[in-house]
């Protein structure tokens, strides 16, 4: 394997073997952020159990290696957490867990937490309506 200095080993691991890629057919909440023209694009799907815990999180991502690794890490961090706990996951926590991200990727690719929060909000809004 040829090493690339740009990304940490953790980032490369999550990029090469992303956890929780995919879609949840009967998702309780869906969050989409970004747009493909100028930035990365991520869609998060969440499944919530009776105790308000995320018992499943999946994602799809269009973007660079960092964007894919961020999505994977967020999904791993969020799984099993309560909705309130998951809402506390911030961009910096994700970057820290990944062993850092290159400066120029901190903003455009680090959208995973935002997408997760949107999915949770989507679930909460749907719940209010029902």
């Amino acid at each position, binding site marked *: *394997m*040829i090493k*690339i200095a740009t990304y940490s080993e953790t980032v*490369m691991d999550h*990029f*090469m073997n*992303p956890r929780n*890629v995919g*879609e949840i057919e009967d998702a309780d909440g869906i969050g*989409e952020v970004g747009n*493909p*023209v*100028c930035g*990365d*694009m*991520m*869609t998060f799907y969440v499944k919530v159990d009776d105790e308000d815990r995320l018992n499943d999180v999946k994602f*799809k*991502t*269009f*973007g*660079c*290696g960092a*964007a*894919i690794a961020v999505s994977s890490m967020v999904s791993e961090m969020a799984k099993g957490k309560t909705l309130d706990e998951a809402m506390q996951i911030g961009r910096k926590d994700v970057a820290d867990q990944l062993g850092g991200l290159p400066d*120029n990727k901190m903003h*455009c*690719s680090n959208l995973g937490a935002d997408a997760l929060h949107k999915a949770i909000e989507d679930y909460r809004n749907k719940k209010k309506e029902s």
Partner: protein
Amino acid sequence: MPEVYLDHYAATQVLPEVVDAMQPLLRDGFGNPSSLHGWGDSAREALEAAREKVAALIGANPAEIIFTSCGTEANNTAVKGIAGAAKKKGNHLVISAIEHFSVMHSARTLEKSGFEVATVGVDEYGMVNPEEVRAAIRQDTVLVSIMTANGETGTVQPIEEIAEIAKAKGVPFHTDAVAAAGSIPLDVNDLGVDALSLASDLMYGPKGVGALWVRKGLRMMPLLDGGVQEGGRRGGTENVPGIVGMGTAAELAAEHMDERAAYLSSMRDALIEKLPAAIPHLNLTGHPARRLPWNASFVVEFIEGEGMLLFLNMQGIAVSSGSACTSRALKGSHVLSACGIPAEVARGSLLFSFGLDNKPEDVDYVLEVLPPIVQRLREMSPLYDKFLKSGGDQNSDVQ
């Protein structure tokens, strides 16, 4: 694991003959070519021999070659120097939308000092229409600068036709031939240009050396003020070992041009033929016929270039991309954008640039490795998901 380097537009290997030619100049031949003694004499002889070889590659008079530190310096010198010397005549330049940053940003700098810049566009193949250059030239135009060939798309421009137009209008014409020199036959008199830039590191020579040819009689201000090196047109002691390396590289390029082009284009054509068959929704960029022998460039829909580069690198394949994510400035390629390729499609850009160290099997290896990488990234992509849900291949209207 095979190691397949397909990024020769970023840098080429330095040929062993070139290294051998350079070595004596790094040891005993360290003299300054401006000195009036034996050490100076031998350095000057080596310098002038290299000048003749570089001139021969482009059919130029050796006295009209100025050595620079790179292609970027050659372009900066040409654009700023020729326009700057003609400031009393006018303050208008014509460039194209696909120029290298060293031409484009030099023009932007001139804009800040009162010049106006007209930028002509290109068609879907990245080709400049000479008639648009004609229409853009004004009474006060002092320079036209259009590249000989674009390294990102491989498209070779109609330089002779543009030169004829510029000549008829009495406007000096500079061409950035950095991507083309050494790869396709170039003769400054046949082309009809007035200035031409080239670089060593895309023709199997060392980095840090370039050259600018300027037709005798064309006024140009130096970019680097200093002593009378390079006929007073470029101050600073010459990089003699590098220049000697460039000379040998130019000599070899001239000698083997046809066989190299035949070899490189056979691999290029195999990839261009087979890759779109192996990967759906992958398209060639640049001109299908008028292209540099080493360039095979594509856009892969629904995914980002950087992911492909990282996976390819894991498999020992080195390529590049014009995607926003792979550029440090995080900006997409202005060249692909000028060709009318939508921004989200340009993000899946892949550039294969072949070189003399490649083997036909390298194409087979790419064909084996790349399709599953694309498939894997597409399976993660929300854009591909939307495409499939909107009817996929039954519905060509993507989005």
